[in-house]
């Protein structure tokens, strides 16, 4: 095996790790936004319902 094979292989692995960390960060962010939106929608619905009852 030559030196450059190690370096190229290692660089590819490093890029993989960086890409995974980036993708995971975006995935969690998207989920958190979706959760927040759902909570907001639910609280608006609850407020509307309680107004209707009164």
């Amino acid at each position, binding site marked *: 095996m030559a030196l450059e094979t190690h370096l190229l292989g290692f660089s590819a692995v490093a890029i993989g*790790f960086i890409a995974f960390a980036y993708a995971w960060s975006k995935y969690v962010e998207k989920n958190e936004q979706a959760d927040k939106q759902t909570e907001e929608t639910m609280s608006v619905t609850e407020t509307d319902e309680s107004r209707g009852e009164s």
Partner: protein
Amino acid sequence: MATLENVGPVFISILVVYFLIVLGIGYYGYTKTKDEADFLVAGREIGPIVGGATLAATQMSAGTFVGTVGFHYFTGISYIWIWAPLWMGWIISLLFVAPHMRRFGEVTLPDFMATRYGDDRANGDYVRSISAVLIVIGYLVYITAEYIAGGLIFTAMFGVDNTTGIIILMVAVMVYTAIGGMRASMLTDFLQAVVMATGAIIAIPLTLNLIGGIGQINAIFNSFNPSFVGMALTPLQLLGFGTAFGLYIAVSPNQIQRIYSLRDEKTVRQAIGLTFVFQAIIAIGVGMIGVSMAVLYPQLATPDVASIILGLDVLGPVLGALVIAAVLSAILSSVDSIMITSSSALSHDFYAMIINPDASERRKVWAGRVGVFIMGIIPFFLAAVGELLGGLVQLIIVLQVSMHAGMFFIPIIAGLHWRRANTPAGIASMIIGFLGVAVWHVSVEILDVIPTPFSEVMPILVGITLSAIAMFTIPYFTGKPSRQSLERFFDVSSDEPENSTGVAEDD
């Protein structure tokens, strides 16, 4: 071989300017430190870029710039692959530890242990004390490795004897850390990570140019030692080293304290992503430096001086000074943050929690500073018996990471994700993991009583296996954890009510 006396004024000026900047940052940290949270977790104001750099700089120390370069010098390029399992540790941290710890949001790792495993009839104080003591023991080993590396560097640079070199380093680090606290430590880390990455990037083309290119390195080693550019270490050996580092990174008390210092969970995720960028650049840099130095200087007295000879003899005054600054920075950055973590174990987890709970903020900051001095002096004496701890810098650091991984990996992962994990299991898992590593190391390396092939099993594998057995069996013979110990980590709203002792009824 050159020493600092004959490298010229430009070299010395760059070193002096660099360390004046570092001292300036220390003074800035001092002026900004008003209370314990400032001293230990920098007021929780650190953003993703400084955070990513500081996570990288804290992980990479003399172990990287002295020990890892030395190991590449000694074994060749294949050692670069230990970074892959080590980064798996960061991924485990990203998915299962770091954001959860930031959400928990305390100050030290013993805070977590005392809360999650707090059913010890002392409100978690016994667990806190045990974990603080074990953290300190592991880090005394670590600081010893850094002192040995620093001694080698000062001997190579100034021509002073090893003990004098260690004393210079010890005094500089203790004063710097005691004054600046975590804020100065993290800002210095940022500067040091940038210097390390820049030094590594520029050193590669310069050394390759001197040698005649990668093809020349292949040609030289293929003729008499092909494994140097092939696979000198077996996949099992690489996995053993990498596992020790990876498991440690996921639960390192030092990294967890850095994580507490970051702004929020989003910042934690971004910082871990950015730390891979810094680390990849530096990994390739140290690998190539080690291999290149084996071509340029095949007869060095010890592999651990390869990077310092590179700076003094090969790279010229500007870049040479930058690389030397990077190596000294690596030691300074790691030792100061380790001292903060250890002194916080002594001051926050012993002094403020157990000895003097009513201590004022000012008294707690000073207790932290006294802790720094205690942690600074003991390794000076341990350095005299460094051979018993592994000898080479890299091997001493492997012992320390194995101790901390053995004692904390299972209790933290189980504590965050397994509701059944209880206090007896947490305490036993922590102590047995630590003892497994320590006893195996002593039996193999000092007493030589373990026969081959068992002696080739790395201490971390013994420690982590015993720790896991303790964690996953004991809860089935003891009670469930209390609601109080679970409520900050799990949704307990639908749990059954507790009995009069505060412990949930067992199944």
